[in-house]
């Protein structure tokens, strides 16, 4: 029996030794970059061309779990809400032939798509919602990206406690995925502020943080290097993968 205890305690000791060693190595830039190489392999093997499963009405979560940063509470946003987003414009510019600023009625006039898809949070939980809105690809067709366009950057109305605004990005191929949606409605109702009113992105083939809420400005760019931390998103600048298929 002593031996069994010894086995248990030596495996426990090996595991507990891992944590301090791992934590120490974690701070090393070289190690950090080496372990980050898995992202490229995952992107290559899994890709972003697959179609997310679409569900039935019976699968919908009536109370769709709220994810992400706190709902904006600044004067500009509360004013938007108070006036039913009458002065809201979704600006789409950058490397495009025809930049535009869409009002909500203008977005509602573009062909509407509806999809019932699962939202997979990076934390591990999932919820299913019915999303309606405009295909991102249709909006890109309206503004016509130029030949050097590589990425589509989404700038949002929410700001974290240190003052950093939320933003996200997709490459052009991901942005033209038929399920990439600028959602205006959730579960047959106009988006409420907690779920990203008036416009949020839905990218059901990747983890939830890609599906930016409170989108106000879409910028088509050839490089993201000069945008905030340069990693292509609020969470990406904090070490999360830009390729969020896994």
């Amino acid at each position, binding site marked *: 029996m002593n*031996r*069994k205890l*010894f*086995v*248990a305690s*030596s*495996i426990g000791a*090996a*595991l*507990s030794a*891992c*944590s*301090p060693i*791992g*934590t120490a190595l*974690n701070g090393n830039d070289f190690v*950090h970059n*080496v*372990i*980050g*190489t*898995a*992202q490229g*392999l*995952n992107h290559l093997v*899994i*890709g*972003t*061309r*697959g*179609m*997310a*499963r679409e569900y039935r009405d019976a*699968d919908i*979560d009536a109370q769709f*779990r709220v994810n992400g940063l706190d709902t904006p509470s600044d004067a500009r946003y509360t004013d938007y809400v108070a006036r039913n987003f009458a002065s809201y414009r979704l600006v789409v510019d950058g490397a495009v032939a025809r930049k535009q600023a869409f009002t909500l009625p203008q977005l509602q006039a573009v062909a509407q798509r509806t999809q019932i898809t*699962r939202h*997979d*949070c*990076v*934390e*591990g*939980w*999932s*919820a*299913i919602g019915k999303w309606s809105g405009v295909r991102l690809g249709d909006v890109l067709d309206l503004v016509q990206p130029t030949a050097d366009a590589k990425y589509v950057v989404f700038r949002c109305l929410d700001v974290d406690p240190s003052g950093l605004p939320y933003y996200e990005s997709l490459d052009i191929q991901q942005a033209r995925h038929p399920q990439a949606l600028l959602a205006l409605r959730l579960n047959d109702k106009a988006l409420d502020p907690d779920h990203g009113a008036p416009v949020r992105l839905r990218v*059901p*083939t*990747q*983890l939830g943080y890609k599906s930016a809420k409170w989108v106000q400005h879409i910028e088509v760019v050839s490089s993201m290097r000069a945008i905030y931390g340069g990693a292509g998103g609020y*969470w990406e600048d*904090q*070490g*999360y*993968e830009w390729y*969020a*298929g*896994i």
Partner: protein
Amino acid sequence: MGKMKPAVHRYSLVTRLAHWVWVVAFLVLVSSGLAIFNAAPYLDASDKSNPARRVLSIDAPQDGVGTTTVFGRTFTTTGWLGWTDDGMGGKSARAFPGWITIPGPYDLADGRRWHLFFGWVAAICWLAWVISAALKGHLLQMLLHPRDLPKLWPMQAYYLKLRKDPPPHGRYNPLQKAAYTAIGFVIAPLVVITGLALSPGVDATFPFLTAMFGGRQFARLWHFVGMGLLIGFVFVHVFQVLTQGFANQMRSMITGWYRPSPHEGSEP
């Protein structure tokens, strides 16, 4: 007992390297996996999250109290699960304690980085070893063969001291073969596949994988169960190494040289 047999060169360089790479990868994968689990410390037997189908949850119902609920039965696990070491010298609401997770302080981004990298290390190492072992011909010596089945109970009887001698066998005894076959060719691959199946990109690109395990949350549950089985195997494996000639076993996995016991034949 019989006389000592001369030492043989049993483990190839590839096998020995693969073994120790797996030791490191396994420890990192368990530690970083528990760090990832901490972000949503519950497991549901369903596709989307569904508290009605919750199999396991680890909670801190109030400051200073940790609980673990398994199939609806709640146990107090303060200090071990639920309310634990925060990895920074204090205590906080955290499913698995900081002393067992990589990194110690809560950091989902870095836990994922370690996990996804060492997942590749373990999988590539497995592929390289299988190819090498198959080419050298020693893969078949490890795999359970139908003719080993009648020897499984006699071997177990020997371990239980119900039998004086083990049944005659080749390089590996029938229980070893059963364990290696189950772990190396069923459970470890399933752990990799369930890990892939719980991600949205894999679900979109290879939907049959996620569907096969009952959906995303169910795949997450199977991934966790698979980890438990691998940990169980490691416990038995280390126990066997400690009790069946520790120095001989360790030397063989470092230098390759192994002194067979009198019962071991040379045939597969």
